[in-house]
């Protein structure tokens, strides 16, 4: 699944990439379809204002949706299912300086929050909280990668934070097992903790002070120094 959302006010203002559809402030649930033939349910909760800004530049940054001033707003996406997703996003306003506050969340918990990030006009903040000039934005931005245990993505923006673009790409099902290979001998297979990315899982194993790994049945112990590889498996 690869689906992009181009936030603006007028459908024909620019031409969307084949994987993207225009978001013109529709309330959740709304079915969006792109030129690649994919459809997805998404939409806003809260009072939304829409703007077209610049049609001649990057179509993904041509317009925006933001709060109408009545409070925070949330763009909710119904994902096809749990799994790991890459999220590309752009926040800012081609015509104004902004101070952006954005929260990415799944059904139950916050994934990450960026608070009070200064974004000048003709700049955008990405899904990792970095700010780049718009003409280099998509070549520079860093996607947010998250393993969803639920199938809901929520992007909440404060008053004064404009959303320009959002893209959600499925990176595969969540890992179910961790394959731990010792320096010698046979592997140890452990259940994979839900909600972590493979990198977070490996980092937790190697860096949180845990000096050993216990097998699922509680009978085998591997000291950290004897671990050769840790591999999440689907």
């Amino acid at each position: 699944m690869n689906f992009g959302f181009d936030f603006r006010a007028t459908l024909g203002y620019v031409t969307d990439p084949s994987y993207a559809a225009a978001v013109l402030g529709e309330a959740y649930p709304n079915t969006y379809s792109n030129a690649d033939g994919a459809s997805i349910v998404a939409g806003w909760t809260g009072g939304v204002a829409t703007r077209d800004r610049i049609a001649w530049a990057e179509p993904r940054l041509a317009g925006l949706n933001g709060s109408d001033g009545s409070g925070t707003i949330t763009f909710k996406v119904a994902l096809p299912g749990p799994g790991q997703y890459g999220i590309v996003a752009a926040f800012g306003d081609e015509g104004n300086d902004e101070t952006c506050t954005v929260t990415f969340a799944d059904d139950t918990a916050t994934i990450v929050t960026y608070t009070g990030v200064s974004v000048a006009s003709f700049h955008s903040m990405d899904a990792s909280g970095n700010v780049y000039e718009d003409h280099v934005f998509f070549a520079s931005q860093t996607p947010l990668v998250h393993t969803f245990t639920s199938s809901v993505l929520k992007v909440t923006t404060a008053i004064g934070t404009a959303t320009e673009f959002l893209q959600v790409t499925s990176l595969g099902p969540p890992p179910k097992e961790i394959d731990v290979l010792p320096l010698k001998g046979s592997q140890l297979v452990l259940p994979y903790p839900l909600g972590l990315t493979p990198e977070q899982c490996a980092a937790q194993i190697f860096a949180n002070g845990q000096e050993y790994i216990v097998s699922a049945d509680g009978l085998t112990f591997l000291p950290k120094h004897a671990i050769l590889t840790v591999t999440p498996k689907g």
Partner: protein
Amino acid sequence: MPAPTTLTLTLLDGTTTSAFTIPTGTTAEQLWQQLIRNSDREGYIQSADGTYFIPVSAVLKAVAS
């Protein structure tokens, strides 16, 4: 499944130590934690019969049975 009563260490060279007895009221993991308490790679484990010493860094795995 009965509670395990022994903990056997396998070393990096493939040899196996004499098994440690898991005291009543202690889990295998608690015994393992005691054995590697000084697991800064400077520590060592005394063999069950007390006749030799194993650097923690030489331990490949421990298996309770």
